[in-house]
């Protein structure tokens, strides 16, 4: 059995508390506050203390889904990605890049936000990209 503690940043509010995720053999067991971070100084709120709980929830999406006959059904990554790319291309070719819009995410990493806005801007020649900063 292998027990590890991985230092990372809380996924909830904008405080940016650092915490340690407790991992036993690939499963998340718990969350502990990082004492070395000058912001949270070894403290977390109730959401932070439980930040590991939703990660391995049975409700998580585990496979790509495509709507077929009105229902979302599980498909392979290849099918889902090819379908998405071809639909986006089809719409861009028929109606122009400004007919597509992207919502990027205040929950995702900087790197992911950077890539999505880059894909939107270079792939479609549009600035139709926003996220929930106002919400």
């Amino acid at each position, binding site marked *: 059995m292998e027990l590890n503690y991985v230092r990372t940043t809380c996924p909830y509010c904008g405080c940016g508390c650092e915490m340690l995720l407790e991992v036993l053999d690939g499963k998340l067991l718990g969350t502990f506050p990082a004492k070395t971070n000058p912001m949270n100084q070894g403290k977390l709120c109730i959401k932070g203390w439980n930040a590991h709980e939703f990660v391995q929830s049975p409700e998580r999406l585990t496979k790509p889904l495509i709507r077929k006959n009105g229902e979302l059904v599980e498909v392979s990554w290849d099918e889902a990605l090819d379908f998405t790319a071809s639909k986006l291309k089809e719409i861009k070719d028929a109606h122009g890049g400004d*007919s597509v819009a992207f919502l990027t995410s205040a929950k995702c990493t900087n790197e992911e936000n950077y890539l999505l806005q880059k894909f939107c801007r270079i792939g479609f020649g549009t600035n139709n990209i926003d996220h929930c900063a106002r919400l």
Partner: protein
Amino acid sequence: MTNSIAEIEDSQCVFVIGSNTTVAHPLVAHRIYRAKAKGAKVIVADPRRIHLASIADIHVSQNLGSDVALVNGMMNVILSKGLHDKAFVEERTEGFDALQEMVKNYPPERAAEITGISAEDIVRMAETYAGAEAASILYTMGITQHTHGVDNVKSLANLAMLTGNLGKYGAGVNPLRGQNNVQGACDMGGLPNVYPAYQVVTDAGNKQKFEDAWQAKLSDRVGYTVMEMMHGLEDGSLKGMVILGENPVGSDPDTTHVKHALESAEFLAVIDIFLTDTAKLAHVVLPGASYAEKDGTFSNTERKVLRVRKAVEPVGESKPDWQIICELSTRFGLPMAYSSPSEIFDEIAKVAPSYGGLSYERIEACGIPWPCPSPDHPGTPILHKDRFTRGKGLFHAIEYRPPDELIDDEFPLQLTTGRYFPHYHTGTMTRNSPTLHAEMPEGHVEINQEDASRLGLKDREQARIVSRRGEIVSKVIVTDSIDPGMVFMSFHFMEANANVLTNPALDPICKIPEYKVCAVRVEKLEQVQAAAAAE
């Protein structure tokens, strides 16, 4: 935030307005308690008697949407008593004369009339705030989510500049960001008007710079904001949409309209970790990875860039979102071949000057706040130290405007919205967390005893809440933490979501919806059912 969180505890006055800090930002609230223990005065302006009100030296309940009048009233007092920082105003600002003229219209008596706060309290607030050596303003969506949200923010900036509370330790104008990486999503150019690091898309030089960096043809036209996207889907100008890790069905105002808009899309793809109400409407759903299953960075509300580290493998066949975007782009015909998030970060540092000196190596031990333009730059905890970005700080003479939707006979109560301590946003994460769900398994509407009695409502009874946009059924909590004439709800619970009711009217500049004020009525459920049965 113009200043860092740690500084708050050394502030001599903390002015909290439109922020339920103990609930939404507990680790910031912690610093407010410390400041109080060190002798700071705490001023809380919030329409509800939130927990911070109980430790405040001054707590006032302003009428919903009256913040501009309150701040103008405070500035009127400060100027008439000569409490402003004359040297700061002289050396570092412009537009003072126009501000001074405008503020004359807001003697405390008039501000009192608009805000519902006593003139004496407005004078005390002004004296306390202006009298402190370093005073910090903290705010959140209570200030911004209005049709005059930009006016509210500019008014607070006026107040801070007038008293020299910018560019120094323990002071500042400090918006507390509600989401872990809302700062970063903005920094990265996840906005329709700017490239990464707020370089505006309408500037020819910026466009050229990014065309060179990305080897692509770009648009210099400002794109749609989220609410405009919803309108675009409805009027057919938008055909396709890709949504990464967001749940607009739960988080946008006027849910019925948002659902209709998304259902109108010819093609909707959603990348998420749960099957949210938004994902349920999609044509394709791609399973992303959570924060614990990937590497990357978040930028917190202090602009500090912090590491996110992979602890476990993604569940099932789910993948880190950055990989999904790379694969999608490649299949679209634009190959993206990044081998790791750190490689993407290095590209960000090249095109975003404020991130220019940052790398995974530098932020390994502890995050660094931007601007950090070069590898030897230590980062910038306090903004505007010697000069403002534009040179001199500009005062804006701003008059009070009422909220978009006012009460009437049909909708006689005002609804305002917010968060509860165990939950977060649309509940996607917290309601899938057994411990947090157990703390608060269902939503409710808070109502004052006086209104409850008049409506014949008892504590914990089910009631119907109706606005011009829709209706929901929710449990009533009778409480004296809210004044008569007003009710409060959260937007955590999709089965009784306040956003079915909220008003999608937008601020004309930043296009933020007016979540914080709309008109509703509350009805006893039995009467509604009896009337329905009689029909």
